[in-house]
């Protein structure tokens, strides 16, 4: 088991330094392939790339370029358009409603990223300590289940549970906390956390499972060593588990931060941004501006701003995960 793990890890020289695979073999092999490729000429390479490049260009780059272009126009999506320069961008940065939706998206990071990753770490560590068997498989499956439910469906189901007569309030009443019952999604101050927790519920499973596979790749001898040194559960967690999971955590944080900043489906099916603009997020705002108000230019500008925001948050995270100690 551990040998296989090490073999897999060894073929990709990770800068994390945990694996210690041989750089010699891994460096030689690609070079040989590269020489062959040069002999066939660069054309073969491009030919092989062509389908992917074409698809990427057509479905990603081209729409993106169009969106960037639209963002400089005042256009309803159908009729004639007028060039407005950076006016749409100016509005994104000065409109209180749009800025508020961006703020809400950042609050959602707590629920989409911080909670699922932390809970995932704890759960993964606990499951690792359970002997492999029916119980650990079942708990993994149960934890992962929310992940296969579409977010839109999760939003609808949870809006029923959060209703005045829903499951959440029934449980609160049953345990004597009847005074705390409220229409969760309609209450100022509670709506955003309530919606955020739906995201936590969905994403915790993904985090746990991915972190578990990561833990499996950590050399067990490291755990043995630290145990022999007399370290406790917490020391082991901080010194071995967390550094060993650096890559997985980086991936999860990236994925979940993107999910938080570009969230749409949960909000659309549960609160539609209400009460007031309490749970309005950029995704919903862009949808409304573009399709209900038919202001395609402004919607595109907001979309580009959202993309830049996501990159600003995610790119440093990527850098962080690549750096070795």
């Amino acid at each position, binding site marked *: 088991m551990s040998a296989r793990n090490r073999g897999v890890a060894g073929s990709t020289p990770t800068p994390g330094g945990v694996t210690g695979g041989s750089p010699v073999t891994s460096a030689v092999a690609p070079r040989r392939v590269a020489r062959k490729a040069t002999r066939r000429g660069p054309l073969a390479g491009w030919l092989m790339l062509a389908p992917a490049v074409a698809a990427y260009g057509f479905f990603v*780059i081209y729409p993106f*370029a169009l969106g960037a272009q639209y963002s400089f126009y005042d256009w309803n999506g159908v009729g004639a358009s007028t060039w407005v320069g950076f006016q749409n961008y100016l509005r994104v940065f000065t409109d209180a409603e749009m800025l508020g939706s961006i703020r809400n998206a950042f609050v959602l990071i707590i629920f989409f990223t911080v909670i699922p990753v932390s809970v995932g770490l704890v759960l993964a560590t606990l499951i690792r300590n359970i002997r492999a068997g029916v119980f650990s498989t079942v708990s993994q499956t149960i934890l992962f289940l929310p992940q296969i439910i579409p977010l839109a469906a999760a939003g609808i189901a949870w809006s029923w549970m959060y*209703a005045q007569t829903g499951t959440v309030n029934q449980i609160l009443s049953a345990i004597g906390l009847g005074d705390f019952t409220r229409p969760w999604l309609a209450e*100022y101050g509670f709506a955003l956390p309530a919606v955020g927790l739906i995201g936590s519920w969905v994403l915790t499973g993904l985090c746990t499972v991915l972190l578990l596979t990561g833990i499996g790749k950590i050399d067990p001898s490291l755990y043995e060593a630290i145990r022999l040194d007399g370290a406790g559960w917490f020391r082991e967690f901080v010194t071995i588990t967390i550094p060993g999971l650096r890559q997985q955590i980086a991936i999860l944080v990236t994925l979940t931060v993107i999910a938080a900043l570009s969230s749409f489906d949960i909000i659309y099916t549960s609160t539609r941004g209400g*009460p007031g603009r309490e749970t309005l997020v950029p995704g919903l705002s862009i949808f*409304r501006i573009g399709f209900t108000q*038919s202001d395609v230019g402004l919607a595109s500008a907001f979309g580009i701003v959202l993309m830049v925001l996501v990159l600003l948050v995610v790119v440093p995270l990527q850098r962080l995960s690549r750096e070795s100690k």
Partner: protein
Amino acid sequence: MATLRRARIGRTPVAAAALLAVAGLTLAGCAPGGTTGPADGVEVSTELTTEDVVLTIADETGFPVTDALAEEFTKQHPNVTFEVTRDTFQNLTANAPRLLASDNPPDLIRLPTIGDTVKDGLLANLDPYYDAYGWDAWPASQLAPLRMSEDGVRGSGSLYQLGLGYSVTGIYMNLAHAEELGIEAPPESIAELEEQMQLAKDAGITPIMAGDSDGVVNFVVQAAMNQYADKDEFLSWMFNEPGASYNTPGNVEGAELIKKWADAGYFPSDINAIDYFTFVTRFSEGDGLFTFNGNWAAQGYQDALGDDVTFFLAPPAEKGGDHVAMGAANSFSVAAGSDNLNEVVYFLNWIHTDPKARQIIVDVTGASPGGDPSLPLPEVEPGSLIERAIAMSAQIGAENGQVDFMANTTAGIYAGSIIPESQLLVTGQITGKEFVERVQAFYEQEIGG
């Protein structure tokens, strides 16, 4: 070495993406969009073709009247068949401009707000048919909201829509609760309405059953405003006349009344979690003394509450004053690109004139069938809510008190401003003045932007 390689890899895709983006921009050409002209050249005819024709209709889900009408029309004219496609109201209204601009637009489409579609040349101008069929005998006030001038102002200009039924709104009262509270008759002034609501509140009965998770509480908000606002001024705003404002003393007074009712606890405490179907269900189950809704709900309430419910127009501010109520056509437009212009307009005219079609409108929607007022009205069950609704339609027509729904003012104002701000208003978070000012600010931005 490793750093170098990473750096190179790190930069290439960015450069490539930038290059492709530039290429894409160049490919995309200059300004997006263009002007689409109406497909002219169809000779106006009021005779129905004898050839086989398939008419396509895009309608919203949950409103089966188009199916019933199509079926009856095909029965009378077997050479004309229909294809009805349905989508939710939200999706349909969001996609309507694109559907209409497509190469193969639906012949007839449910379109609540004309918006930019006229400016973009997407709708067929029905003026030639207005003359050909003699629609000048129809109530002008009913058709006014379906017209648009060349400057994009509704209320006058060419006719671009017709209604499959013309609605009226009012207040439903649970008579069992009323009897229990000693209320003998529907309120005849706002003050009386407030007295009766207080009676209900004191007895632990919800005074007004309403919901605002999807904005429907605005039936109440606008009903209050209607009684204080200058009707023509209010309408000019809804029709987007230049310089028209929502921020008028009458509208503020109406909105402040809602704030007062919110503070007094006349609305359900979880109002922002209640959507249309929930509040309709709750009222049908006996929760609430009053509910503000339209004729389309009449049959449902009658089925649920039997004789324990009545329907009346929202009372004027002072006893004996004229009534003002929201009402609108269940508006449909003909696509400018329709291949069957004559046939689809024949169908629309038939809906307003054929006795069976008019009966279907009343039976299925509870709405007034519109058309020439001298035509006989369809039969309705005596004493039923639908009979009351038809009578209310006639009364509001006679008093010339019909106004459009403020949600129809612009395409984006309902979701973008009226819903979120009313959620704040009905929970007492903002004042009526703030509500009116915020909606007006959004309006100016949307109209100007």
